């Protein structure tokens, strides 16, 4: 989403789904996982919209949808590619929108070669790094700076994008539109049927429904969640939907958009003000050791000559002022050198692999239960065992805190508690009712919650913990504070007001800092447009700027919906600038008039010479539609009156992503790391840029048709439980609703494998073996692919060994392998075996050491010869070199 549209968040808000004429829910089980937001989908259905659910399983979402499309897990790009092909072949795209608001007319570099030409690879494959060099993907003659993703590449050649680089007739053979047409021409209904197991007629029905419900008068929305992201090609899944929505003109318009459904209550918040290793607040990249030695380098790499990211220095300087206050001065580059720099990939799985190899001493686990929720449980715990110390903050004594005495390998005697040297500290956490603060929900809405009760006993909030940790660190370093290496700690601003009997930090004071203030008088700034790069403003997170405007906690506003319009601006506050529907300039035609009366949202008011509408316009308020930048324009001034995607270097929605992605400018169907079939489209089986961890404690099956593991496994959630179970398996009211780990199988598979409803089954992969109750259900449908029957097995992943209800953990089964762009694991599609009966005590349930002795001779079939012999992964990481030895 970031690379396609400019901001890495849902383009719309859930209330707006009620305005849709068609909603495709794919890669999410929205009714089960987002039941409250799902009410708007039901509203849309009641208003006559068609609801389409594309999912390997028939779920509670499918139950209330109009169309259910059973799909083979891991084949969504083929399906969506088929829809793109249908749109293009039948000229069903929204021409005016595509020409003016997308980069379809842009002309791409002459060096670019498509997967059509290279059997599944794009041009630029580098056999040394086993990654792509992306120069050949750029526009002809200019390198646009990506708004998200990897931004440092090609910074030298950047310049504003101009008309001469485009062909508005869309006829130029190297324009994005023609490339797109060629790229998806092979995604025919027949190929889709062979790849996804979806009958041709069903694909056409879905495509037709989408097309019929798009255009001036009608709009359609997509909803997705982790059914799309948790694949080794996850980002490209979303990209495919992004392309469809641009072609159909569904972005920035009411009832349109892509609703990214985020998981945990404030998971959007935790990427905005990130817990991610590679970002600073507000999606400012973390400086990289290799390319960002100085502030000048860093700014050059991240500032875009055109579009909104020209403002980059203002946000960065304000952030540094917030971090280091008076110490941050222009002379010392605003303390740029205080920031740690990235030397490689420190994402979760890399970190755990490093831990398992003894490279880490300590680990904080706060609000996470990796022993249950993360891949390859045995490897996770192996990592924990090699630590010196582990801090766990949670409500319960979760499995991660108890790994040293309650884990499969301990029960089987493979590991002895007395051999584990890790010192575990457990801190009881305060629940959300026991502390004040804000949640940023899936639609970027910041909502304040007030403390209702004091936390019991020793429970404390995260804020309190971190604050006191900081205070103690400062104290600890007190004597050596003036040593240069300790300056970051010395200069860190850490003076927050406290309140109450326990001297807890006033949570609102943090919000104030996030909002930003003028350094001279500490007055809150009105929004990010007030931020300066001269040190006169400080701001914790530029995109949140405005949430404490005029000293009012905007996030605590609770005006009921019956006192305002459906956009409900006065309920809480959303970033950016309280806009609810992003890129909403696109809801009006190039002249600034709504595309239709039915789908009216914002428009240019000729009298007032301003943009006006139901929502806050996502555009420069007084820039008329007729504005065109001059040749000398830089930064914000390059945004023309018809550039709705203001964060993008060219102001357009990117159908083709010339920069910012690791695995190609256009989504291409690759099979999951482990599949039951050969890639029907290309010789290249898997995403060539994927991240792998070839370790003996992380063995992979054959790429396809592994006779030992003939079934597709997929994992998911149930309404009744929450993720790794820390918040539901300890609660009797939830536990009674889903008391045991189970697997969902079709009646056909049940009879093939002798499974009885309610009985036991053992599920096995090369990583582990688990047992589960069997739920035989017609909701699981075997798929027919090329005359073969493909069975899929569904596994919820909520259970483990502690709490009121216990069971085996699905994640013991799953390997480390990840998408190259965002390092998300592939837990939605892998292969395995199922047998009737409980697992035997002697057999290993999980690996605890070297497991696979030899590399599987079939292993290499994953990649074309040129893409084999993979060395280091992306992000310059050396993920695969381990003490365990390369496979």
């Amino acid at each position, binding site marked *: 989403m970031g690379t396609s549209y400019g901001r890495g968040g849902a383009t719309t808000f859930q209330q707006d789904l009620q305005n849709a004429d068609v909603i495709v829910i794919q890669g999410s089980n929205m009714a089960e996982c987002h039941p409250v937001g799902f009410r708007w989908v039901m509203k849309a259905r009641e208003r006559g919209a068609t609801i389409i659910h594309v999912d390997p399983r028939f779920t509670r979402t499918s139950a209330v949808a109009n169309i259910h499309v059973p799909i083979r897990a891991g084949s969504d790009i083929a399906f969506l590619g088929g829809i793109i092909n249908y749109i293009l072949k039948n000229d069903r795209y929204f021409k005016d929108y595509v020409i003016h608001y997308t980069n379809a007319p842009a002309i791409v570099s002459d060096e670019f070669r498509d997967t059509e030409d290279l059997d599944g690879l794009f041009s630029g494959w580098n056999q040394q790094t086993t990654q792509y060099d992306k120069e050949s993907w750029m526009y002809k003659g200019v390198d646009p700076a990506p708004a998200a993703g990897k931004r440092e590449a090609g910074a030298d050649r950047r310049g504003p994008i101009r008309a001469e680089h485009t062909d508005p007739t869309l006829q130029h053979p190297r324009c994005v539109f023609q490339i797109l047409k060629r790229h998806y021409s092979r995604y025919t209904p027949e190929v889709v049927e062979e790849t996804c197991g979806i009958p041709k007629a069903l694909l056409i029905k879905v495509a037709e429904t989408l097309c019929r419900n798009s255009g001036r008068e009608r709009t359609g929305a997509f909803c997705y969640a982790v059914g799309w992201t948790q694949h080794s090609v996850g980002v490209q899944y979303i990209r495919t939907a992004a392309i469809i929505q641009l072609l159909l003109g569904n972005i920035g318009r009411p009832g349109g958009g892509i609703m990214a459904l985020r998981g945990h209550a404030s998971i959007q918040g935790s990427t905005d003000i990130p817990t991610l290793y590679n970002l600073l607040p507000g999606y400012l990249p973390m400086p990289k050791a290799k390319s960002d030695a100085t502030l000048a380098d860093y700014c050059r790499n991240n500032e875009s000559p055109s579009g909104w990211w020209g403002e980059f220095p203002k946000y960065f300087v304000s952030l540094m002022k917030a971090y280091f206050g008076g110490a941050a001065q222009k002379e010392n580059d605003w303390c740029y050198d205080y920031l740690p720099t990235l030397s490689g990939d420190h994402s979760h799985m890399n970190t755990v692999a490093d831990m398992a190899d003894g490279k880490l001493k300590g680990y904080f686990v706060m609000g996470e239960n990796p022993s249950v929720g993360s891949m390859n449980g045995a490897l996770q715990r192996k990592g924990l065992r090699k630590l010196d110390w582990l801090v766990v903050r949670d*409500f*319960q*004594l979760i499995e991660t805190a108890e790994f040293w005495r309650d884990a499969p390998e301990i029960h089987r005697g493979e590991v002895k508690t007395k051999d584990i040297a890790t010192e575990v500290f*457990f801190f*009881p*956490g305060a629940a959300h009712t026991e502390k004040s603060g804000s949640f940023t929900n899936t639609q970027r809405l910041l909502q304040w919650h007030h403390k209702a009760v004091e936390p*019991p*006993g*020793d*429970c404390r909030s995260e804020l309190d913990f971190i604050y006191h940790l900081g205070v103690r660190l400062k104290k600890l370093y007190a004597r050596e504070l003036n040593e240069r290496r300790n300056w970051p700690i010395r200069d860190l601003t850490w003076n927050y007001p406290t309140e109450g009997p326990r001297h807890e930090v006033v949570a609102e004071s943090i919000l104030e800092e996030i909002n930003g203030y003028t350094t001279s008088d500490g007055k809150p700034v009105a929004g990010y447009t007030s931020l300066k790069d001269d040190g006169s403003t400080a701001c914790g997170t530029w995109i949140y700027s405005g949430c404490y405007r005029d000293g009012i906690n905007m996030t605590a506003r609770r005006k009921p919906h019956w006192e305002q319009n459906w956009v409900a601006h006065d309920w809480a506050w959303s970033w950016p600038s309280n806009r609810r529907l992003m890129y909403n300039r696109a809801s009006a035609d190039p002249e600034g008039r709504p595309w239709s009366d039915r789908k009216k949202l914002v428009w240019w008011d000729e009298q007032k010479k301003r943009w006006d509408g139901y929502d806050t316009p996502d555009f420069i308020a007084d820039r008329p539609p007729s504005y065109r930048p001059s040749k000398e324009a830089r930064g914000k001034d390059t945004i023309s009156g018809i550039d709705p995607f203001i964060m993008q270097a060219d102001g357009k929605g990117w159908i083709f992503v010339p920069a910012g992605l690791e695995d190609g400018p256009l989504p291409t169907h690759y099979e999951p790391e482990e599949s039951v079939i050969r890639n029907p489209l290309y010789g290249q089986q898997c995403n060539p840029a994927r991240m792998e961890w070839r370790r003996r404690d992380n063995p992979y099956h054959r790429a396809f048709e592994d006779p030992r593991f003939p079934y597709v496994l997929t994992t998911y959630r149930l309404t009744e439980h929450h993720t790794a179970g820390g918040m539901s398996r300890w609660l009797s009211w939830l536990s*009674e609703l889903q008391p045991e780990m189970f697997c969902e199988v079709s*009646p056909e598979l*049940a009879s093939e494998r002798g499974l*009885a*409803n*309610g*009985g036991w089954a053992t599920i096995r992969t090369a990583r582990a073996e688990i047992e589960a109750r069997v739920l*035989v*259900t*017609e909701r699981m449908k075997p798929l027919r692919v090329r005359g073969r029957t493909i069975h899929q097995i569904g596994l919820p992943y909520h259970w483990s060994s502690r709490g009121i209800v216990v069971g085996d953990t699905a994640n013991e089964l799953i390997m480390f392998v990840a998408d190259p762009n965002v390092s998300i694991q592939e837990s939605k599609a892998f292969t395995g075996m199922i047998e009737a009966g409980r697992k035997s005590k002697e057999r290993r349930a999980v690996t605890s050491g070297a497991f696979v002795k030899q590399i599987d001779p079939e292993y290499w079939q994953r990649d074309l010869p040129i893409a084999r012999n993979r060395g280091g992964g992306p992000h310059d990481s050396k993920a695969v070199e381990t003490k365990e030895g390369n496979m």
Partner: protein
Amino acid sequence: MIAVTTDGRDIDLEVAKLSGEGALQKVRPVDTHMQRVAREWGKLPTPDTSDPTYYGRPVLKEPVWHWAIPLYFYVGGAAGASLVMGSAAQLDRSGELENLMRRCHWAGIIGSALSGAILIYDLGKPSRFHHMLRVFRPTSPMNMGAWILSSVSPSAIVAAMFAQRRGILGAFGEISGVASGLSGLALSTYTGVLIANSAIPVWQESRRVLPILFGASAMASAGSIFDMFFEDRAARRVTYTFGTVGRAAELAASIALERQAGRVPHVARPLHTGASGFLWKTATVMTAGSLLLSVLPGRSRKRRVAAGVMGTLGSIMMRYGIHQAGVASARDPRATFRQQRAGHGAAELD
């Protein structure tokens, strides 16, 4: 500071404790009443669309009454019928039936006291038995029953005390005797209404017969008791006649009940199968046997005792059979569904 147990978080466990009236209950775990489903595991949960049920789970709740209630039906019935006999005996002015009368009154007193005890014993909250008399509610046979039961003992006691006296007191005793007979009539038949007035298909379906069956059975019970325990030459013929008519009526009513319930064949199933079927059938055989013994020529004491034993067993087993049939009927969703689909739900009332 109160010392509290704490968990790993050092949280006061009292914080999370459920509180209030609802919370205190200890719940029967699902698996105990789910055993039947567990046995059905392995069958694919594909519903039968033409004759659907919800996984074969019952629609109705089973009667929660335990073994004491059929016993109550029996004891109450026998007591009531005795009192009826007792007050009928007042018609005889010869004094020959005085013994019988006294015995009847005492049987009524003891029986109704026992009934009350059993009934209270079966209550979920015995200490609140008197709440039964908080209201007068004609729609509730159980409430009526409570009033009936509480009117039995006083009238029977008064009757027992004064019936044989002369003068005003005697008249008072006789009136009480008649009253006790009337409440005896009610006591021995209302239990039929009690269970007929329910949602349990087999009971509801046989509602027209149940009070008659229970009344007849009460007569047989009382007759059998007198047959077994007392050798009163003067009264022999009276109790014998009363009992035999009862036995015959019980047998006839049983057959009628089967036919009534069998109007919807599925509803009568518990009378033919399972534990309830066994009890029911054996009861019928017993009753028939005792009837046979009592109508065959000859009146030896032995045979009368044998008839009494069989009659008693028949009556008791009949009550248990009916009770069990109710339980089985409640468990079987199709009993409800088919009864109502056959037009014997509310449709029957039009």
